[in-house]
């Protein structure tokens, strides 16, 4: 069963996606492939707004019945928003991983880092080889 990999997003090998917003911020979430592998999410631990992250740092935790996985930040910057609706409805990540299931938003400190991420095709290969 193939998972959805929107072509307008960037990705990490560890299955995070990043979307550049018109206002220059980055929205981060986990891919459709990741949510399927984890199973039904029961809890999401999000970073504090204002927290400064470096690229590749563990930023959030997604917890299902069988696993708790770290979510890594695709870029460096300051957390400006966290998806509060996930505290009551973690299943949004399973149902709509690229939309309502977003995890947090970052104001990036180094725009060049976005170029270092995988595009949809490259990420597609990562998923294929798993």
């Amino acid at each position, binding site marked *: 069963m193939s998972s959805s990999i929107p072509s307008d997003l960037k990705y990490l090998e560890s299955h995070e996606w990043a979307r550049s917003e018109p206002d220059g911020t980055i929205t981060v979430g986990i891919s459709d492939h990741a949510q399927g592998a984890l199973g039904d999410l*029961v*809890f999401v*631990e999000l970073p*504090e707004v204002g927290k400064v992250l470096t690229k590749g740092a563990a930023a959030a935790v997604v*917890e*299902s*019945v*069988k*696993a*708790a996985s*770290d979510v890594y930040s695709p870029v460096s910057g300051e957390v400006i928003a966290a998806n509060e609706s996930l505290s009551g409805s973690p299943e949004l990540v399973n149902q709509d991983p690229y939309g309502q299931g977003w995890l947090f938003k970052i104001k990036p400190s180094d725009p060049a880092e976005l170029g270092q991420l995988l595009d949809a095709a490259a990420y597609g290969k990562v998923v294929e080889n798993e």
Partner: protein
Amino acid sequence: MPFIPHTEDDVREMLAAIGAPSIDALFEEIPESLRTRELTGIPPALTEMEIARLMRERAASDGTPLNFIGAGAYEHHIPAAVWAIVTRGEFYSAYTPYQAEASQGTLQLLYEYQTMMTRLTGMQVSNASLYDGASALAEAALMAVRAHRRSKSARILVPATLNPTYLSVARAITEGQNLHFDVLPYDRSTGTQPASALEPHAGQDITAVVIQQPNFFGLFEDVDAITDWAHANGALVIAVVNPLSLAILKPPGEWGAKGVDIVVGDGQPLGVPLSAGGPYFGFMTTRMEHVRQMPGRIIGRTVDLDGKPGYTLTLQAREQHIRRSKATSNICTNQGLLVTAATIYMSILGAKGLERVAAASQAQTTALVDALTQIDNVRLVFGGPRFHEAVLQLDRPVRGVLDALAERGIVGGYDLSRHYPELGHALLVCATETRTAQDIERYAAALREVLSAR
């Protein structure tokens, strides 16, 4: 080993099935340099008959002295039904019985235990127990640091009236994790923690404040004021309590305006024998909002395929076998046997029974203090309200007096001069419901005799 059921033929067959030449060959991946050879310094094996006799002789040398020591472990009567049930094979020898498909009886019992502990402490959720009260405090400190995301200091304020062993264990267990335990001075005239000792820390980044109730001297702290001060200063509150005292005291969930955040203590008073120091069990309860940071096993109630109630381990993603180095603790077990005893003890006594035990212990300690302070040069140090323990001052070093009492078959109490030298020749005594008027008279007579010599 005589109790392994496999014959040499069985072993040969199994090795052949997996294609291994010998049992030793299965250990080949351990480097030669790490292998032990003959174990030296081990005496020759004893037979079962010899070792049973050796153990009987050793046990007999403990004697059965009359016990007036408390200081964190208390002698209470344990109804015969408790250990008659606990020693059933299903409880006694089951090894890590946490699988839902195999151990519904055990899991239900642990769930009942958790329910009782939340009721007793006035909190919302409990784990299935930790090793002991002291290490439970260490876990609570680590939990507070994790749960309190806004605080960066990892500073824990502890009263000087906290059980000194609990403090040294908490320090030892958390060493290397950059926690700071700051000890607050106590009021020498009352033996308790004054609110004023907290004031110098107002406005500082404090992660948690620890309150022991009753404190190590058996006295009552101003738990409401300290709890409110801590919350007003953005700190979490960790309560360290004697579970039996909660039968008559206000539970930590009702301290101050909001109640405390984490409750820990040692469950030994609830049906666990003294056994020369252990094993006992630690308990931990907390609020639902902190449950994901709580260490230890947690049992939950759910329904099976047919909609019938069933019990299972839950929130396992906190634990080591799933979360590994980021787990809430290295603990992946509980003190199942002692918790079984405690649950049965609490069931048999019920709330009223626990109240009676607590009240009787109070009464016997009062009688003990009255009898002993009649003796010249024995003085009650702190006059405030207390729970079944009291601090007495003698006119000479406590160690010598305790030794003389021991010769008369009496364990007289706990020598406080080691940890609290400022109190001079101070002795912490305790009498529970197990000490009769005759026991107290015997102690008083012996102490009078010891103190009149020289």
